[in-house]
């Protein structure tokens, strides 16, 4: 989930922070210190996150496009300049553009807004933006909520009391609410100093940028892993189940399934599963005598050389499914909708069992078949030749089909009666008795028009069918039962 850091570089950020005569800082220095701490943390613990840095005052500027190069981000922080007044709305429009250009409108994004809480004055101020929210045309809509799912974190280089003296806190809360409500407003506790800014950014890091560590289990085989990005909690139905579902830190393999059977399933999110070395020993690495130091392998080298289940699993999956591919690949985890049956074609997940319990291998001895997909009990309309006469053409086609077969009697006896019965059923269900009479008349007419060369059976079948339709059109329960079928008249012309 990419991050946009949106840094307030308005003049108010240069306000000094008084610290009892000790060296003076500007609020900007505190903000930069906090962001440096965040970037350092990400560089070592959350390196795969794409982060971009934007600065804003009355205008906005993309300082660093989305990157994993945290040095570049820190470098840009050290070169910030000071500008005029704060205009949050323009900056948020900038965020919206930058994110959509890079990731489209479906990719969830995190926005870290760093500001001192003085949110501009007059036109362009956040207060003004929020007040005029409802008086805008389609072309000047407020940028929130963003089209993409958003988590908004507002880092205030100010304490809560200060923000509550004006309407700044109210405005920020409204901003968070407008963005969809997912996120948090952080303020500094105690005096404005390096220590309290560290505490504040520390909370953000713990909440959002702590790596998700889990254990991947396959029976007794297991591997410590990091799952990236962090799996997000999911609410399926806020009324029935308002508690979000979260991903357990024990990821248990239940069994295996062919790629063709899983068939491009819809996923909530996808995550890299990266094996990690967790040092469970309390003992520190003993260094022994100095002359052995060169031989001492580093911890990561050691980890690289001890067999890891993730690597085995990845290797075997790759070998099984893409034996010839030279493409770089990784172990990935896809999250399905939580619930008993995320993919209808697999059936209930809890009812997937081992093939060893089946009498015969459901995949066949030579893998020639598959127990998937699971078939639904009732066929969909497009798979069961339903009758729809909403359009006149539908009805005409069905009548013509019967007539076409009628002219080819007795060769087409079976098809003729099949189509006749289909029409009969629909006409009875729709209460369309007039149609039954009409088709009976048509069949009688066909009977009179039979050529001399026609098989004598044709005439018998046509008048029999016509008579049966007429009986059905009376609604007489003996002849108009839905499940009843008109059967061909029994004739014997063999002699």
């Amino acid at each position: 989930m990419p991050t946009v850091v949106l840094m307030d570089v308005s003049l108010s950020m240069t306000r000094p922070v008084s610290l009892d005569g000790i060296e003076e800082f500007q609020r900007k220095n505190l903000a930069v210190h906090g962001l440096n701490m965040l970037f350092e943390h990400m560089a070592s613990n959350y390196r795969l996150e794409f982060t971009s840095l934007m600065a804003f005052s009355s205008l906005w500027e993309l300082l660093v496009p989305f990157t994993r190069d945290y040095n570049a981000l820190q470098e840009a922080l050290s070169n910030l300049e000071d500008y005029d007044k704060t205009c949050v709305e323009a900056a948020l429009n900038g965020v919206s553009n930058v994110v959509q250009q890079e990731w489209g409108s479906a990719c969830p994004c995190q926005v870290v807004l760093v500001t001192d809480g003085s949110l501009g004055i007059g036109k362009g101020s956040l207060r003004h933006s929020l007040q005029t929210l409802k008086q805008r045309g389609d072309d000047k809509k407020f940028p929130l909520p963003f089209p993409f799912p958003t988590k908004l974190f507002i880092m205030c280089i100010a304490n809560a009391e200060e923000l509550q003296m004006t309407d700044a806190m109210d405005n920020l809360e409204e901003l968070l609410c407008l963005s969809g409500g997912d996120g948090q407003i952080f303020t500094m506790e105690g005096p404005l100093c390096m220590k309290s800014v560290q505490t504040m950014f520390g909370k953000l890091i713990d909440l959002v940028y702590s790596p998700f560590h889990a254990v991947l289990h396959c029976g007794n085989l297991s591997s410590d892993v990091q799952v990236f990005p962090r799996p997000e909690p999911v609410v399926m139905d806020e009324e029935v189940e308002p508690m979000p579902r979260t991903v357990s830190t024990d990821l248990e393999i239940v069994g295996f399934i062919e790629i063709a059977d899983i068939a491009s399933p819809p996923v909530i999110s996808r995550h890299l599963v990266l094996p990690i070395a967790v040092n469970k020993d309390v003992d520190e690495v003993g260094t022994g005598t100095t002359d052995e130091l060169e031989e001492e392998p580093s911890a990561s080298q050691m980890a690289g050389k001890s067999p890891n289940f993730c690597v085995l699993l990845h290797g075997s999956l790759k070998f099984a499914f893409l034996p010839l591919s030279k493409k770089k690949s990784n172990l990935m985890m896809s999250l399905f909708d939580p619930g008993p049956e995320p993919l209808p074609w697999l059936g209930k997940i809890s009812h997937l069992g081992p093939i060893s319990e089946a009498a015969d291998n459901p995949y066949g001895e030579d893998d020639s078949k598959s127990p998937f997909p699971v078939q639904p009990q009732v066929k969909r309309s497009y798979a069961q030749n339903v009758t729809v006469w909403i359009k006149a053409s539908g009805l005409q086609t069905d009548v013509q089909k019967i007539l076409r077969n009628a002219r080819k009697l007795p060769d087409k006896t079976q098809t003729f009666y099949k189509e006749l019965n289909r029409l009969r059923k629909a006409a009875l269900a729709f209460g369309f008795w007039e149609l039954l009479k009409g088709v009976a008349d048509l069949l009688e007419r066909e009977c009179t028009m039979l050529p001399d060369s026609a098989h004598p059976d044709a005439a018998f079948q046509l008048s029999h069918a016509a008579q049966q339709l007429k009986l059905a059109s009376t609604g007489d329960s003996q002849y108009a039962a839905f499940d009843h079928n008109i059967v061909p008249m029994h004739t014997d012309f063999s002699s």
Partner: protein
Amino acid sequence: MLFPDREALPSQGFHQICKMKMFSVAHKTVFVVDHCPYMAESSRQQVECDVLTKSRAQGVIPLAPVSKSLWTCAVECSMEYCRILYDVYPKDKLVNYIVSDSEFHILNSWRREDQSTHELMSALAAVGPPNPREDPECCSILHGLVAAVESLCKITELQHEKRIALMDTADRVANRGRIICLTNAKSDTHVRMLEDCIQETIIEQNKLAAGSDRLMAIQQCELVLVHIYPQGEDTLVSDRPKKEISPLLTSEVHSVRAGRHLATKLNILVQQHFDLASTTITNIPMKPTLNVCEQEEQHANTSANYDVELLHHRDAHLEFFKSGDLHMAGTSTRENGLKETVTLKWCTPRTNSIELHYCTGAYRISPTDVNSRPSSCLTNFLLNGRSVLLEQPRKSGSKVISHMLSSHGGEIFLHVLNSNRSTLEDPPSISEGCGGRVTDYRITDFGEFMRENRLTPVSESSHDPSGKLPAERAKAQLERHTRYWPMIISQTTIFNMQAVVPLANLIVKETLTDEDVLTCQKTVYNLVDMERKNDPLPISTVGSRGKGPKRDEQYRIMWNELETLVKTHAGATDRHQRVLDCIIACRSKPPEEEDRKKRGRKREEREDRTEKNGSKETDDKSWQDSERLKGLMDKDEQESEVIKDSPDSPEPLNKKPRLTSEEIQPPERTKGPVSLLTMWSNRITAVNSRKHQEFFGRASSVNSKFELYQHLKDENGMDVHENGKATR
């Protein structure tokens, strides 16, 4: 209390998946269709069903056109509504169909098994068209509307299941519903009377429901009244948008001419009611090769391109709505000005390659015009197992594959494919991470393991005596299959030996037959035979300089490993135990520790250090760990000398076996002072025991009894083996 129409709002917050609430008004739909005498009137829309071909037209008087009654129009349009609904939501969006004349007739129930158009058609056939001679004074739509309110109070299976599951928060299960009334009303006043009556009935029924387990009070009811009148007449009832009658009831009135206007209206309603949207697939080639329903086509050789319109949940267009691309994406407004469709272009599929697309949603579809030739060609093509990628036309003219049509188990889904840049691009290489530099993983063996542990759907009716769900049994199988499963080739001997396969495959089973035990025993005898013949073994030479362990030591390693494998299963059943007994009885005993003293000091130090480094595996079941560790350490030390182990290239035979003498040797180190090695072994054991998970003895005890310190024998054996390796 107000129940705002929440499902109309976009989802808020990104942990929300945009779905209809489980118990929104869409959960329960009651159709109330007027069956009074006036519904037998003709719609006056005529259908020419005798379409004469030119050649036959001469001298034949064509049949007079037929016309549908108001009743027929109402029924077929409501069936079409249900058809689309059941196609897109086969489960838990329920319809209860009621017909009203001098009394009400309930044609089906909320039960899942009653939810199909076939059931409803069968029931409708039994009702038949209205009787025009019935006394109109006795007939009223009110009977049906009252029954509809009563029906909405009846609990559905899903409501029941959820209430049971939620226990004390059962009140989260809401009871809302919609009544679609197809009737011919007399006037606006008549409509108001019907609304008032429904309102009163709701209040009455809610009182009744309060005292019942099988009834639920109605929290929200949406009345959709469709007034149907014949073509060519003026309507006596005016259209009215949705308005709130009371906090419990909203009502809207649609005044529609019978025939195709009614059909269009109900098609729009089903889309509104169930959050549907329309996609038109364009440029579908109907070449004979692609076409499966061509047999009746007169001009089968012509190849034309067709369009097919599909309905599906509107979330399949979510990205278009959000990005504002909708109007560029070939959206067109229909003639009626109410419905929009998104146009996507067919991309002729390549050969049946199996690809796993990054798909963010899959939605069931229903063709708008299910019986039309283009529709049935497309659906049959998909039902036959082909998938079709769909291209979104963009204003820039660039090609973007945005969707895929594919069928699974006879159901067709519109998959939404991700066409944006991935945030997971350029991930770290697996070879740079943990275990990335190990080169001899048992890749093919694990591939076979995965094949054996594939899953299959188990019918819900099949009952397992253990009471465990199939997925739990699958996990239990994985547990059994991995009790002893070395991950790399150089960690194992037995899994590199074809001769062990029959036993290794059988011993992991939950239960063994006598025949299985016999097969295992035969495997063991076969190994004994191999040992007697001094057959070479695929012992790992990784980490050993020179020739590796001697042949008799190789066999001892093999027997130890086999015993380790079987011991992990011996506790399961008596038959498993019999296999272990057989191995213990047949295997060669560890040799004397005579050459133990040759071990060098340097190695010990190195191993000691490794242990401190904590790179060791944590299980302490057997000699395996120290053995494995040593292999790794040695490999580390002499990387250039590593010879990849292979079962095909065993050590050449060079030493005589010492079978006979060994068998009578006491395995214990009974003589002499304690060696450095013993001290080291004891230390290792002590360290390991701190990390262990379950007492091995407890795990594999027989009748709660287990011989303690068996592993000392093994460890003893290992020491000797190590000496052998070190000998140069």
